[in-house]
Structure formats: structure tokens, C-alpha cells
């Protein structure tokens, strides 16, 4: 399983954990993960603790994800990302669109 999904007890916080490489191959799974029960969720957390690498296609998927869950009003946090991933996201200025912790 490249991806696991966790919902808080009140259904408000959806945590998606991506394992291994985050690239186009997890596209379908990733979409299902945030589409599922989207109505109730107000916050999304992407846990990159086990994510080795993110490619540009996955960065594109992040933008689609952000649009799907509210665009500018979306509340998305990225946690536990490794140094290289943070660098990539910062290079793309994604720290201005996602809360990177």
C-alpha cells in the first residue's frame, strides 16, 4: 500500500500518509484518498514521514488536490517531509500555498 488514510474521530481531519515515492503512479489512490468523505473534512494533513521523494507530477497533483478541497481557503498541512522534499516544495514556492511543518 503506497498510501494510508486516517480520519479523526469527528471526521474533520483527514491524514494521508504517502509511502515511498510520491509520483504519478499513486495518482488514482491519492485522489481517492482525499475524495472520500471530503464533505465533512475541514483540515487535511499530508504526512511525508515515509515519503522518500516527490516528483514534479506529484507537485501538480498537490495543486489539483488543493483546488479540490477549497483552493485558497483550503487548509492543508504537510508534515514530516525530508530535507530534499522541503527544498523542492520551497523552490516551487509551495510553502506559500501549503503549511509546511
Amino acid at each position: 500500500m503506497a498510501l494510508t488514510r486516517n480520519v479523526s474521530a469527528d471526521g474533520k481531519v483527514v491524514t494521508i500518509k504517502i509511502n515511498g515515492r510520491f509520483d504519478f503512479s499513486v495518482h488514482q489512490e491519492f485522489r481517492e484518498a482525499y475524495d472520500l468523505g471530503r464533505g465533512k473534512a475541514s483540515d487535511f494533513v499530508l504526512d511525508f514521514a515515509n515519503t522518500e521523494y516527490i516528483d514534479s507530477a506529484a507537485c501538480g497533483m498537490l495543486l489539483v488536490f488543493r483546488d479540490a478541497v477549497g483552493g485558497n481557503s483550503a487548509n492543508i498541512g504537510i508534515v514530516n517531509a525530508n530535507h530534499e522534499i522541503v527544498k523542492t516544495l520551497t523552490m516551487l514556492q509551495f510553502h506559500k500555498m501549503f503549511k509546511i511543518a
Partner: protein
Amino acid sequence: MNAPPAIKAATRLADVAPTEMLMAQSQPLKILVVDDEAVFRTLLQNLLEKMGLQVVAVGSGAEAVASFMHEQPDMVLMDVMMPGVDGYQATEYIRDLSGDSFIPIIFITAMSDENELAQCVMRGGNDFLTKPINPAVLQAKIEAFSQLRRLYKAVKSQRDELAQHNHWLKREYEIAEGVFAKVMHSSGLNSPNIKYMLSPQAIFNGDLLLAAYRPSGELHLMLGDFTGHGLSAAIGTIPVADIFNGMTAKGFPIPEIVAEINQKLQRILPRGLFLAAALMELDAKNHKLSAWVGGVPDILIYGAEHKALAGRFTSTNFPLGIMETDQLDCHVESMEVRPGDRIFLYTDGVPEARNSDHALFSQARLEQCFNDGYEPSVLYERILWELDQFRGTHEQSDDVTLIEVTVDPSANNPQAPSNALAPRPPSEWSASFEFSAESLRGYDPLPMMMQVLLETQRLHQHKQRIYMVLAELFLNALEHGLLKLDSSLKERTGGFGEYYQEKERRLAQLGVGRIKVRLRHAVNGSGGRLTIRVEDTGPGFDFQQRLEQLEKNQALHGRGITMIRSVCESLDYSGAGNAAEAVYPWRFGDGSE
């Protein structure tokens, strides 16, 4: 030969009804029966025909091979022991003839020794039946092979279809690649001061490299990296290359090109697809490097003097095609560079190259190359070498894009546009422009004026020279007339950078002042005469003294005046020195640049 009673029970013949499966096919299976014993042959033929099958029966191995060719049966029942060409040999021939289609061959034999039966399969048979034949077993085997044969056919046709698709796809890629290559063809990349490594599959990796010169001689270079791979990544390169090449040739500065590309991509790209890019302008004559970086790794500058990293441009902007253009910061950063300095651009394929242990080459390793004191002329090769050493045999460097630009004031456009149209017949016309301080603050009107000039008289073959004259006069009026900048600033070390910083500072604060430009064209024999007059509301300058200095070759500045004079028949100043008028003559046939 010596066959025991062939068919176990003739009565059972009647029991054998055509089965659905064997009949389901549009055409009944055609079975080739090979046996040298006429009785057995006939019995078998009757049996098979009762099953609804079409039968061709022959009495020898040689006949079997011949009728295999003519009849093209779907399956063969083959006696082993026959005089002349025996069953094994006939099978061998038939296998050769049937190529890659699947023709089941079942041996009919009186042998019962296990080793001999195994031999049947070793010699190319798919199965065997021992005499006497049990009709039910025979039918079951034929059904099983018929099914297998259908399966084989389906797989084969799918394989062929796939191969065909693959072939088409490859062809389409080749065509697309040809189109892309033409669009991407940037004559600027042939400059002797540019070295680059671009994967042959770059276009389908979404990588984009463009270089072109502005009419005023500055080099524009763009490195881009589209999200994803394949055609979807490549498709955006066409509009981007068109905008970049077109606007650069018309003299537009980087910020306007960035805005235009973003605008276009924002409109055409689906969400999730974007272009990480760096665009730079190198004005080598004025030691000025400007860049806009959005989403690609740092541009690194190697200083020739100290043989060390001399500066960098870091991504501070969103990649193109994500944000609305009014939310995108299109401004460039600038720094001073010196002749001989090296500018390096690369995609993330360089720092993210991996070795067999899956370790990254990393930005740190890349930058280490800049701190080892290499001669500037070898650094590019050194980086590629380090990269190769690091990767070892792990991967080919086919997703590495690396560019080196040398700051060389003498480098210029290696190839003039050969498809420039001839000028229109000379006519009388004029156009005037007046720019207030407000419009000058946020807008560079040179490309627009050039456009008018080029469109009206179609003087494309004279573009570079006319641009130079217009730009010199206009920038003099702006920088010295209105902004009162002192050229002597440029002579100090680091002065170029300071000069341009000061220019930007003063321009931002410019409150009053105007520049008037008047273009006047007149017929002159078989050609024309273009008069460019630029007037500013500044205090002017002592042009008499400047001109005298130039005569005596004493002036430290005013190279612009010399340059204008080299292509114009006259250059005159009037008023307090705040009005300049240059006359550029042209004739048909001259001026190919």
C-alpha cells in the same frame, strides 16, 4: 503398418455427435489425417466428419507436407510409422512451414512404450493417441486443442495489434519530435559562448531550452521543465517557444516575456501541469545579468577572477502556469558579471541524479565543483565528469540538462533570421510618441516603437542597427536627460551593478519629465531615409565639448555616439543638448545582418 484393429468399436461412431464447441466456429475445423493404412484413414475420416469437422486424408508423409501447404489445415493427426518420410520428419517440415502460427499436431501411434511416446512430444508433436482410438478421447483432445488454438490466435492478434500500435506511436513521436525540434530551434544556442547538454529525449521529458538575442544584442536564455513526461509534458513547449523567440526578437524584456508565457500557460494548461523555469538576460557589454527564477534550482555564477562561486539566483517565484498573471511577480533580479564569468543553469536532474546506492548527487556536491578552484574553462566538463563518476554505471545521464553561458561581450547572434522579408517600397510617413514620467516608470516603450517601425516599412534586415540607434538615443534621454545618471559610475569596480541599481531607484521615483520620439521616413532614391529624433525635458549636456573629445578620442564615455555615427549619415544635437536627431539611410539589397 501393423496396426491393431483401428477403431475400438465401430458402433460408437454413431454416439459421436457434433459438439457445440467444435461447431461454434464459423467454419468447421479442418483436420489433416495422415496414415498409410487406407482402412484406418477412412475410419478416422468418418469419425471426424461425424463430429462436424472437415477432413483431408492422405497416405504418406510427403503427401502430408504437400497438402499442408495447399489445404492449410487447423490441426494434424499424424501416424508415426510410415514408409518414406515418416511422421517425425513430416512434422518437422510442417513446423517449418507453419511459422509462428500454432498448428497442433497429434501423433497416432501403435507404440505403447513410454519412452517412445515421450519421443513423440520431443519430435514436435503436441500430444499423442494410441491405437486403438477411443472416439471420446479423440474428441476431447481435438476440443482441447481447438480451444488452445483460439486462445493462441487471440493472443497473437493482440500481440500484432500492440506491435502495430507501438509502431504507429513511435512514428507519431518521431513526427512530433520533428515539429518540436523545429519550433524549439533557437539560433541563439549556436553561440560560441554557450555549452549545453540536453537529453535527446528532453522534449518528452518536458525539458525546454531556448536562447535568442534581442535586437539590441542582449542574450535571452530560458530553461524550462514541464511537469510530467511524454506528449502531455511536451505540448506546452510550442506556445512557450513561440512567445520566447518572438518577443525576444522584437526586443521585449524578460519580465514582459515571463508575464506573457504565464498568461498563455494559465489559459491552456490543465491544473496540475505547470512549467518550472528560469529566464535570464545577459547584457555582456554592460556586465549585467538579470534573471527570473520560478521553480528550478539556483542559477550559479562562477567568477573567473577568483575562481569561485560569485553569485546565485534562487527561485523566489511560482512556476509558470499556476498563478494568475497579476499575482505573479515578474520582476528580475540583477547582478554584475565580468567577462569570462560562467553562468550555469540546470534542471533538477543534476542534483537529483542517483547512484547505485540510491544516494543523491545533491546540490552540495554540485556546488563543491565551484569551490575547488578549477579554471573557468574546464568547470563545465568537470561537473559532467563528477556526475558520471558519481553515477557510476547506475544510469545513463539522459535526464540531465546543463547549460553554461560564458560572459563574452564579443559574442553575438550567430545566425541572422534568413527568412526576413524585404523592405516595403519606401514611402513618406512619420510617427510620434510622447512618454510621461509615469509611463516610463513601469514600461519599456522600445519594443513597441521598433514594432511600429518594422511593420510600417518592413525594415527587418536593418533591425539590429536601427534598434541600436533608437535604443542609444532613447536610453541617453532617459538615463542622462531625465534620471541624471553619471556614466563615470560605470568605471569603478562593481560600478555597473551600482549604476543599474541607481537607475532602477531613480526611475521608481521619477516624478516629472517627458521624452518625445519622432520617427520620420522619406524616400531617398531607390531606398529610404529614416530620421529618429529623441527629445527630453532634462537640462541637456554640453554636446559641443563631448563631440570635440570624441574627435580627439579622449572621451571615456559616449561610445554610443560613435556607434550611432558608424551606421548613420548624421547625428546632430540641438537645443541645450536635450534633442538628438540621427538619420539612418537604407537601400534595397543592403543591410542583411
